[in-house]
């Protein structure tokens, strides 16, 4: 009973942090039942993760932008355009795919710097800047795909980024061994890091959750990771997309939680004037955040184009909305200053699980848009109401 009460108050207090996990579990359970298990099949989960890669990458960048209280509406068509640029470079210029990818990422950084320059140095509101840039790259995308329409990419090495899987080290029938090993390492790393952080918290007399709940949390997350890894290992193993996303998340999570740069970003989001008076160069931070967003838009463009094995004139449509929604679902505050990269990844999975599940259920595309819109609004309503009850 005591345990149950603590559990209840824990959920209540941390509803902002756990909300998205609950949402994800509820959505998955719902679709699993409605599709008679198809949704949770190895094949579909593997697909879902590969499909959501570009949204996840964009959501990570958007998290930073939203934390400092700006928005970037350009990233959809910037990603679309940059993906098409990769196709043009590989197909029409016969460039090796590695060099094409580097050029695309650099171009993304350049576009991000342009946005950042206008917002941070010139002082044009990001809404206007990025809306204009979105139009520019929507046009540019049409222009470079215009001659041929869709550009099909025959380069299998490039297409593997979105469709391929990591190689295996041993040959066991039906099981991807390397994936299993990575999964187990991840679980061990998670458990160790949790114990260390708990010890530290206790040392400084922070409030910690009670041991049984702590163990429960550990088991729950471990089983969750283990289950997903098991499903993936039963199919083709870990996809390259998952690896790319994981790398991005680890790097950005580290920057945001452990470095001075991350602190400065949260500081600017929490109170711009106080941050400036505390010696933080708000313009520089703003510029950097938009630059990182541009870089990630380039990466997202590569993931998407590779996944589709082609560049299309419509690529990039509403990507920015999915990224914004993913960030809000993932606990980023609409008032700025609050949000986690890891949360936004869960948000991205939610935003991709919805259309995926609905397709399996045979729901028409029109409802898909409506439901995505509703989810976006709900996420922000959730944010505002939970913030209110706190104060």
């Amino acid at each position, binding site marked *: 009973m005591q345990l149950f009460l603590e559990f209840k108050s824990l959920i209540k207090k941390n509803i902002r942090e756990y909300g998205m996990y609950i949402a994800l579990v509820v959505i998955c359970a719902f679709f699993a039942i409605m599709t008679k298990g198809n949704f949770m099949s190895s094949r579909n989960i593997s697909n879902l993760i590969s499909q959501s890669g570009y949204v996840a990458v964009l959501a990570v960048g958007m998290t930073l932008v939203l934390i400092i209280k700006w928005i970037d509406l350009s990233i959809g068509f910037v990603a679309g355009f940059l993906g098409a640029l990769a196709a043009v470079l590989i197909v029409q210029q016969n460039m090796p795919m590695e060099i094409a990818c580097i050029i695309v990422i650099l171009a993304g950084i350049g576009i991000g710097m342009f946005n950042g320059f206008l917002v941070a140095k010139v002082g044009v509101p990001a809404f206007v800047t990025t809306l204009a840039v979105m139009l520019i790259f929507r046009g540019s995308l049409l222009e470079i795909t215009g001659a041929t329409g869709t550009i099909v990419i025959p380069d299998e090495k490039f297409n593997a980024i979105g469709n391929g899987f990591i190689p295996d080290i041993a040959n066991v029938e039906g099981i991807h061994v390397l994936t299993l090993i990575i999964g187990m390492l991840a679980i061990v790393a998670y458990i160790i890091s949790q114990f260390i952080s708990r010890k530290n918290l206790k040392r400084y007399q922070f409030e910690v959750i009670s041991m049984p709940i702590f163990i429960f949390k550990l088991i729950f997350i471990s089983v969750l990771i283990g289950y997903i890894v098991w499903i993936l290992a039963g199919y083709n193993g870990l996809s390259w997309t998952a690896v790319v996303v994981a790398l991005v998340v680890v790097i950005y999570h580290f920057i945001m939680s452990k470095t001075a740069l991350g602190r400065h970003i949260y500081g600017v989001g929490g*109170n711009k004037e106080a941050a*400036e008076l505390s010696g933080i160069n708000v313009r520089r931070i703003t510029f950097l955040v938009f630059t990182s967003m541009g870089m990630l838009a380039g990466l997202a463009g590569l993931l998407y184009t590779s996944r589709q094995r082609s560049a299309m004139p419509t690529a990039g449509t509403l990507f920015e909305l999915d990224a914004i929604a993913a960030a809000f679902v993932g606990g980023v505050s609409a008032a700025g200053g609050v949000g986690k990269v890891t949360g936004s990844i869960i948000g991205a999975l939610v935003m991709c699980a919805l259309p995926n599940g609905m397709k399996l259920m045979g729901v028409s595309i029109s409802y898909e848009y409506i439901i995505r819109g509703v989810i976006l609004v709900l996420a922000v309503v959730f944010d505002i109401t939970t913030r209110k009850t706190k104060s």
Partner: protein
Amino acid sequence: MNNYILEMRGITKIFPGVKALDNVNFKVKKGEIHGLLGENGAGKSTLMKVLSGVYPYRSYDGEISLDNETQRFNQISDSEKAGIAIIYQELALIPELTVYENIFFGHEIKNGAFIDWNETFKRAVGMLKKVRLNINPAIKVKELGIGTRQLIEIAKAISKNVKLLILDEPTAALNEDDSINLLNLLRELKEQGVTSILISHKIKEVLSIADTITVLRDGKTVCTLDPKDRDFNEFGIIKHMVGREIENIYPPRLEQKIGDVCFEVRNWSAIDSAKGKQILHDINLNVRKGEIVSIAGLMGAGRTEFALSLFGNTDKYAVQGEMYINGKKQKFKHPRQAIDAGLAYATEDRKNKGLILIQNIKQNISIANLKSLCNMGVINENREIRATESYIESLNIKATSVAQITENLSGGNQQKVSVAKWLYANPQIMILDEPTRGIDVGAKYEIYCIMRDLVRKGMSIIMISSELLEILGISDRIYVMNKGRITGEIMTSEATQETIMQKAML
């Protein structure tokens, strides 16, 4: 039947932890000009906010009656309907609209569903005549000077058939001519039967025009004077304004060695870039090692702007002049450079410009000096926590842990966090802007002790304060600022409240 148009009886208004108004009685006779005086924080604006319904009925104790009728205002529009109009220091005109649109903004003359522009224009001309303004009503307000705008505000008030006109520091931003003009207008309005309340820091001005003067101090009515009273003069009124009993609320002065000049500005001038107006004129000031120097002055004297302009806010202020720290000439392009050079500025506006309220104590204390905690850009959190804990202990910050969100701290503890943040940046010269505003007496005493302790360890402090007693109680030397200029420099041992006040209100 009495001849009071307004009677406020037994008004008490309590904010969390502070009694802003304590059983205030305030009566205004019909047809008079009534001056309301008091130091900053004496309760003048709170009283006017109670009167105008900003603080709704029931959020205070006491009774208000207007024309012998008891009033219960729940919002500003209620008091407006009853015939009370307040003109605030910050004018409420809309710059992009024309004069006639502004005069009838919010109470438009309608013909059915539509605005009757002809009638509006005609009446606006009449209103402008009443306030003796000879301008084209079709001109946009943004093209007019501040003095003219003030008169338009009054025209707007009169157009609502105002019974009681309240002016909050109407001449604070006006030049001499405009001020005289405005005061003459008040006299004329009085002849036309309009009663007005004049809130002002300019005592001479109030004396020249008011029929009655009420002085507030510490949320209480001190006295109500008319020209027959012996104290109806500048010195008499200053005495009432500041003459509270002095409690022992300052730590004792210790013998202390004051060193050489470590901070100096010469011919410092600044232009507010947003307004395009010069706000600081030829300021010369110096601070010695181990010294507490105060900058006294009224609100709007330019003290905060001075501090901000020193601190490298080049976006907001274009500065001229020279600054020396330990004899070395300095020029800051960003607060970062100022901090690195050994300067710190703890703002008066803790909530909006000082702390990041959604973050915890630890994050707030370390933010100005994260560099010292970092190894290749990675924060050493253990060291951060230890540093924070040492400040919680040494400054006696009352908090549950280093991870407590600063929003949930009391004002005094927030101020201590703000001080800790700047101590952690390890400055040589600390500028404290209104360090005790809005905090209770106990916490004030602790802040004073901290300041004394810091200068004993060799730091120098520039304190900006509006509280004269605080300035006299804590500082070694006092500069007085008025309208962006230093109007006096006094050793505390030779200063009295009256001498400071006089220089502040020249």
